[in-house]
């Protein structure tokens, strides 16, 4: 390059700022603001992350499952539970903190969030709360969301009934020998009991509880019922699934009716699996953490399955088996690309299915009708344990 060329280039460079300024308008000053969520659709969900490695930092994420996009998050501290109102207008987080991190005054809290702004609309202190690796059924809502039910173990067993209008605990219902809440209708819940019965608590017009017990229908040490068995408060239907794979369809209510069980294995053309009396037999079994999900209008039951012995009830599922709850037959089996301890489904006509990769904290979104992976949110969290979708 000659000297004249260099000079010409230099002149051109000197002229550049004025030229660029003419093409690009100067950026305007900005004000900081806060986003609100787009309207919730059937595929807008909550994903609960227990963060087992430092539980006090648990959280719940709002996810647009159509885009695989994180929309926001809230604290859900120390083995917290999360329950979403069926209309997705609000959700509740039951959580525990200590005033000075790992010490000081303990606060058991029931926090209500506006689902669009993620603003706190109530932040109520509870008498207590069960501290246990979180299961969906440690916190329940009545069908009309007028009541929240918080399971507590301190260490006696009880359920705190919270009026969601006044944000006060109206009752602490002792449920000796029983645990968890499976809400039915607007004024009752059932709990599973150590003697193999259901305790059914009806809250009378004056708010006082009346309890009945169903006859014993299972033996907990022989073939326990999964605590994460799915149910619906709206119609009071529950599908209690045993460790071996028996499904006890139950009409919850003040006089709960438990139907004769059917077998997940028999519904798939296999022989029924043995329970604790033949623990070493390897076959397909249900297992995981949130190991089942219900699509209510489709009458389909999604169950995480793995091959294993008895006492492998927390092992991650390698496949999801889908059952018709009216015929008790398996409709389809969907192998998973990553074994998962949780499964969730949306409640619409084009449902999505959710599973998680325990190793990476990845969140996997699939077509619930085919099992085809649609998108993966890599490392969404740490310990993804269950989802909550509108209309559940």
């Amino acid at each position, binding site marked *: 390059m000659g000297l004249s060329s260099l000079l010409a280039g230099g002149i051109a460079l000197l002229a550049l700022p004025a030229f660029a300024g003419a093409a690009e308008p100067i950026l305007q000053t900005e004000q900081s603001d806060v986003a609100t969520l787009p309207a919730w659709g059937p595929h807008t969900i909550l994903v609960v992350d227990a963060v*087992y*490695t*430092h*539980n*006090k930092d648990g959280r719940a994420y709002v996810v647009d499952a159509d885009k695989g996009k994180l929309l926001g998050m809230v604290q859900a501290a*120390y*083995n917290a539970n999360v329950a979403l109102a069926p209309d997705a207008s609000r959700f509740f987080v039951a959580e*525990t903190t*200590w005033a000075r991190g*790992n*010490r*000081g005054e*303990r606060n058991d809290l029931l926090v209500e969030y506006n689902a669009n702004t993620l603003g706190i609309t109530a932040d109520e202190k509870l008498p*207590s709360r*069960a*501290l*246990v*690796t979180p*299961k969906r059924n440690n916190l329940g809502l009545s069908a009309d969301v007028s009541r929240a039910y918080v399971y507590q*173990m*301190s*260490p*006696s*067993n009880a359920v705190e009934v919270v009026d969601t209008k006044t944000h006060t605990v109206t009752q602490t219902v*002792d449920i*000796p*020998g*029983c*645990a*968890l809440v499976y809400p039915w209708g607007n004024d009752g819940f059932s*709990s*599973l*009991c*150590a*003697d193999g019965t259901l305790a059914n608590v009806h809250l009378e017009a004056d708010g006082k509880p009346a309890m009945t017990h169903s006859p014993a229908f299972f033996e*907990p*040490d*022989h073939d*326990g*019922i*999964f*605590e994460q068995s799915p149910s619906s408060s709206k119609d009071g239907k529950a599908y209690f699934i045993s460790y071996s794979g028996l499904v006890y369809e139950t009409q919850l209510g003040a006089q709960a009716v438990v139907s004769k069980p059917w077998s997940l294995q028999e519904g798939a053309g296999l022989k029924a699996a043995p329970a*604790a*009396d*033949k*623990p*070493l037999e390897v076959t397909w079994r249900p297992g995981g953490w949130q190991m089942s999900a219900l699509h209510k209008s489709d009458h389909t039951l999604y169950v995480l399955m793995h091959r*294993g*012995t*008895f*006492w*492998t*009830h*927390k092992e991650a599922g390698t496949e999801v088996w889908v059952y018709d709850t009216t015929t008790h037959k398996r409709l389809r089996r969907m192998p998973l690309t990553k074994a998962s301890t949780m499964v969730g489904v949306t409640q619409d006509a084009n449902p999505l299915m959710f599973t998680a990769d325990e190793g990476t904290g990845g969140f996997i979104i699939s077509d619930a009708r085919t099992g085809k992976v649609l998108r993966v949110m890599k490392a969404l969290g740490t310990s993804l344990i269950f989802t909550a979708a509108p209309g559940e």
Partner: protein
Amino acid sequence: MSLSDSGKKQAGLLDRLTETTLRRIAGRSSRRSVLTRLGGAVAAVPAFMLLPVSRAGATTKAAGAEAAKPKAKTPFGAKAQAKNDLACDYWRYCAIDGNLCTSCGGGVHTCPPGTAPSPTSWIGSCYNPQDGNSYMIAYRDCCGQDSCNEVTCLNTDGDQPSYRPMANNDIIWCFGTGTSEMYNCSTAAIVGKIS
């Protein structure tokens, strides 16, 4: 394993005793005194557990084989080892869920410094391949610091849901420790021999 009829009855009796006791103290006591009494009840467990109680996770003696050692009849017991208490397949850990205190500055029945042991616990029954015996194991949590994550295990032999709390490994057993109920790690103390 196969529970004999008498074993089933004994197990049932234990459950009824436990439940009845819990119902009684829960019905009559303030929560603070429930804690005290439950702590006392669990402290009494070693003597209690020497009773010939057979549970779902326990093994049974072969009839007429006086000198014969029981064989592991549970999935975990069949592959357990007795040498390395830093590994999840160490025989005592048959029903452990959580972090091994042996890897957190404590020991198999010792809490790490800065934590406190829970007076209450859940109970497993585990087969020791070294001596051929099965033992009742109390999985006492160490509390007051957040989770130690050096070695984390999830073993479920005999693990029952939380409506059977004494056999459930999901509950944070940090009642009455004098610290916060924050879970650090789990120990596995022998509290009795089964067979």
